[in-house]
């Protein structure tokens, strides 16, 4: 019995790995059919993200918001909720971080930087709180409300930027140095990439999520409510409050993801005519990572690597970047269809014996 248990863990670890391999294989086949050179394409990806410091830096930089939005989705998932609203929560977090950074620009960095990040977390939390509250109080399905809240966030942040923080170039002014996560050191280390200290924030967030869910009574409650609200209520937990809390925490992670863009990558916020997509990518990252902290980090790494690598792939092998999107989609499919892989593995094993 114990062995089966262990095998299961091995399985769950193998599944994403095999999925990635299968996804890349499928991508190669598509390239072959459509007349591109898959070897060159993959080589260019690998070469750039592993051997060109600039792209290594950019990959890690791209990971930062992905980790956080992945955590946001995973956290909600763990508690039985589907947060499609990460995108919107990220936008309000982004805006808030930038606004606080600019608005309180006189504060010393040691105060301002954490303040801006916390404010962003709060903003995201509020944006997540609304669907959570509506679900708890009025039983409104969170999927709809989070979708609606995304659009509201998009328009509201645009409006706020245009009205209060507008500068040339359809964006806010840049945040002062005292609110910036960017680092000369990291930049030089990576030949001028936009890598910033946010990666530490992302790692801390991953630890926090793991800690909350698995080490605290609150996390126990959240998971319990996620699995069985009736039993949780019977056991004395406040189901409604947990639903709300879960969405708020999830939103906070998303808000911090926004702060990373606002204080790190860009140092400002642009008026966005459409969604930026990191929130939706977060769904995929969470799934790739099997909704675990460590998994989310790996998922984000894969995502970021492929995305950043695709720039070189486009440039060197001439393959449109959309192919990366296809590969990612296929990987998600394979992860989702873990049953298939499990089945294949079992077959292989039996055949081997």
């Amino acid at each position, binding site marked *: 019995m114990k062995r089966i248990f262990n095998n299961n863990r091995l399985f769950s670890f193998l599944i994403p790995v095999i999925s990635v391999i299968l996804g890349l294989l499928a991508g190669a086949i598509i390239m072959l059919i*459509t007349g591109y050179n898959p070897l060159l394409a993959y080589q260019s990806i690998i070469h750039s993200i592993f051997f060109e410091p600039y792209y290594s830096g950019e990959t890690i930089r791209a990971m930062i918001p992905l980790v956080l939005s992945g955590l946001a989705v995973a956290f909600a998932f763990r508690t039985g909720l*589907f947060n*499609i609203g990460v995108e919107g929560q990220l936008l309000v977090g982004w805006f808030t971080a930038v606004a606080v950074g600019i608005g309180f620009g006189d504060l010393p960095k040691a105060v301002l930087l954490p303040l801006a990040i916390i404010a962003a977390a709060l903003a995201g939390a509020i944006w997540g709180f609304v669907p959570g509250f*509506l679900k708890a*109080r*009025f*039983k*409104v*399905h969170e*999927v*709809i*409300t989070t*979708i*609606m*809240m995304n*659009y*509201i966030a998009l*328009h*509201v942040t*645009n*409006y706020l930027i245009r*009205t209060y923080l507008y500068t040339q170039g359809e964006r806010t002014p840049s945040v002062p140095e005292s609110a910036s996560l960017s680092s000369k050191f990291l930049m030089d280390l990576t030949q001028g990439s936009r890598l910033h200290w946010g990666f530490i924030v992302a790692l801390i967030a991953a630890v926090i999520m793991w800690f909350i869910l698995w080490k605290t009574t609150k996390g126990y409650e959240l998971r319990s409510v996620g699995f069985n609200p009736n039993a949780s209520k019977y056991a004395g937990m406040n189901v409604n409050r947990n639903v709300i809390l879960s969405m708020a925490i999830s939103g906070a992670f998303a808000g911090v993801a926004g702060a990373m863009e606002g204080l790190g990558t860009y140092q400002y916020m642009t008026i966005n005519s*459409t*969604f930026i997509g990191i929130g*939706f990518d977060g*769904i*995929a990252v969470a*799934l790739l990572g099997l909704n675990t902290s460590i998994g989310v980090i790996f998922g984000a790494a894969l995502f970021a690597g492929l995305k950043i690598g695709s720039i070189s792939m486009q440039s060197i092998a001439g393959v*449109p970047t*959309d*192919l*990366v*999107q*296809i590969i*990612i*989609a*296929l990987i*998600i*499919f394979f*992860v*989702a*269809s*873990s*049953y*298939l892989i499990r089945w294949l593995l079992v077959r292989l094993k039996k055949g081997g014996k």
Partner: protein
Amino acid sequence: MDIMHILEIVIPTAILTATPLIFTALGGVFSERSGVVNIGLEGLMIIGAFIAAIMTTIFEGWGLGGASPWLAILVAAIASAVFSLLHALASITFRAEQVVSGVAINFLALGLSVFLVKLMFNGKGQTPYIKHRIDKTNIPFLHDIPVIGPLFFSHVTYTSYIAIIIAFIVWYIIYKTPFGLRLRSVGEHPAAADTLGINVSRMRYIGVMLSGAFAGIGGAVYLVTISSNFSGTTISGQGYLALAAMIFGKWNPIGAMGAALFFGLAQSLSITGEQVPLLKDIPDVYLLIAPYVLTILALTGFVGRADAPKASGIPYIKGKR
């Protein structure tokens, strides 16, 4: 502008905007009623729009003229149904987490369609414009009826009427035919259906593929009535709105249609609002977010708890306890 004049602008616009949503939301109803959550409606719409763009152009090339967009819609329906097989395969046969598989559908549809467009059109990111659209017309005779005529029978496309009629047909199918009974049973309690000899997987495959076909029509209709060409951003969020409409409509075809029309109306109001004296002075952000806020208010206010099919989202595994 007097009220009537405003309505004459608002209502036809609302109906036009709602039409693709109605089709797609109906698709969602089929899928979810069979017990398969379909977040992939967005992606299925993308495929529909993409195929419609390509096929209309091809049919035009064959000299089919005004029939081209209509035929293209049909092909799009088939293509999206086939594409939705991926979702069916993953979530029914391979027991995938259905939300995940739906998300993958969305990624894949976007990547694949744009990739193919680039391949077909020499690296270009969008298709040429179609020459024959399905245009807004005034319905003969009916549009002369006072009041109703200008509101409901002028400046509308035939696809809108088809959508509304189909909503009723879908309602009939789901609630009044053996097929519908079986479809719902599979979404509510697959094990029970199984013991009665209903092939759960087959019903679910049918549900998902119908959702593919309908979402494909939705995307195609959007293309041939509104956008006229396809690019990666042609469908941006309509699938999610359709999903919301389906939930808003409580998984009921008529309800979904009503919700889609409501979305259309809210959006149309938000656009026309700027041209209406009273609403003009309101900062445009309020009008822009109005449809979404209204939807939330409507859901909290008077729609109440949504009752999803019980087994929706749960893969059926024979004999699992």
